[in-house]
């Protein structure tokens, strides 16, 4: 059942042989060692697995790896190089302390970046509405909203 696929992740190309049932999330985590994207519910309900595909935020747990070929996938690991400053959204999450356990945070940050780029971060209410697909069991929601608001003006031109 294995099939050869080519994934483009964080600017790099990866050739893999996968069972066609493999989700993009499992390919990232188990095959490419990109364990930033988290498996929460694995049913598209929690948002912990959120990645960007061609700039759109999507759920990697409901995307087949084989169907992700040809798209530019960006994960939390692709936001800043090891020796680069953090992405403004990462920095804002740190400074606002926008998490407790941190498990949902990579999905929150990817989703928040897309939320700003889509133009859906114009008020606290709008941020709450457009971030509702990312659940936080620690309920750090007020600080997540604050982080998005802090990062938004710093993302101009990015």
């Amino acid at each position: 059942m294995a099939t050869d696929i080519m994934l483009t992740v964080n600017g790099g190309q990866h050739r893999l042989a996968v069972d066609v049932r493999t989700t993009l999330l499992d390919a990232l985590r188990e095959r490419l060692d990109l364990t930033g994207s988290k498996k929460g519910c694995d049913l598209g309900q929690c948002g912990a697995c959120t990645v960007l595909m061609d700039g759109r935020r999507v759920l990697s747990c409901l995307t087949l790896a084989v169907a992700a070929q040809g798209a530019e996938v960006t994960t939390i690991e692709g936001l800043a190089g090891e020796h680069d400053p953090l992405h403004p959204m990462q920095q804002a999450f740190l400074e606002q302390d926008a998490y407790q356990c941190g498990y949902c945070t990579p999905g929150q940050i990817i989703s928040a970046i897309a939320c700003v780029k889509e133009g859906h971060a114009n008020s606290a209410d709008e941020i709450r509405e457009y971030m509702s697909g990312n659940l936080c069991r620690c309920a750090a929601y007020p600080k997540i909203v604050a982080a998005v608001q802090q990062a938004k003006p710093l993302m101009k031109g990015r």
Partner: protein
Amino acid sequence: MRPFAYEQAGDSSAALRMTANRGASAQYLAGGTNLLDLMKIGVAKPVALVDIGPLRADHASISVDADGLHLGALVRMAEAAEHPDVLRDYPVIAQSLQLAASQQLRNMATLGGNVLQRTRCNYFRDPSWHACNKRDPGTGCAAMDGVNRRLAVLGTSAHCIAHYPGDFANALAALGAEVTLLSPEGTTRRILFEELHRLPGDTPHQETNLHPGELILGFHVPAGPWTRRSLYLKIRDRESYDFAQASAAVALAVVDGTIQQARIGLGGVATKPWRSHAAEAVLQGQRLDEALAHAAAEAAFRDAVTHGENAFKPELGRRTLMRALLQAATMEIQPNA
């Protein structure tokens, strides 16, 4: 998840051919947000998936002209929800999409797939329950006397009370939309969207009138003097990212305070995308006030049948429709072009 074969179709004729070759249990894969979910929980067991993602090249356009709104089946929910022409001329369509799911899901799910989403009935979604006429015909219905708070009160049968969970489809039904279907033989047919889904009756496993292998190509929402004065009101257990407990799709053509035409759809309360012709008839030619809205809401739920936990739904549905009508009547709009 059970093993399956995967093929990607470059165009619609390839999709038809691949599906025909794979037989009855092959399925089209578009956004995958409902299908992969159902495969993971063991409810959907296709032998093959035919990925129709590349059909976006031909079937993902959005256009508004004198004839109405044209939506390709591969348009993503977020694209239609935020399209300026849809927002201006068909707000009920835009709102029904914007109020559904999360932005991640709206970025993935297509309109064609969205209208075919399956019920959220707990018993349907959990194969450890034996009794589900929709999942396994003839096994009975555990929901009748079970956890059925979300389930339907309109269009039910003695065999199934599973609700249709979507939003967009109720707006399509209300506005008299048509759906274009491509048959495995390569011919197209257009049917009223209201006729795409079936009532459960004694065959709740047969949810649509799609022929085997038939593919949805797109939707046409006819123009009319009611489309701009339209809205979708959705009542949920939580403020965002939830299915409707009750919703109303309302469109009104009002001249000098009199309703010339009304178009009404209901969600979260019925077994299929629901248009209430009975409520529309009450409104036609009348001036809208609270008493008339109440009469329309009474008509909409006259045939409601409840099953214990969902006994609150007719009243919630009536109030939802009343509020939607009163809001639509006072909406600020530009006159239709």
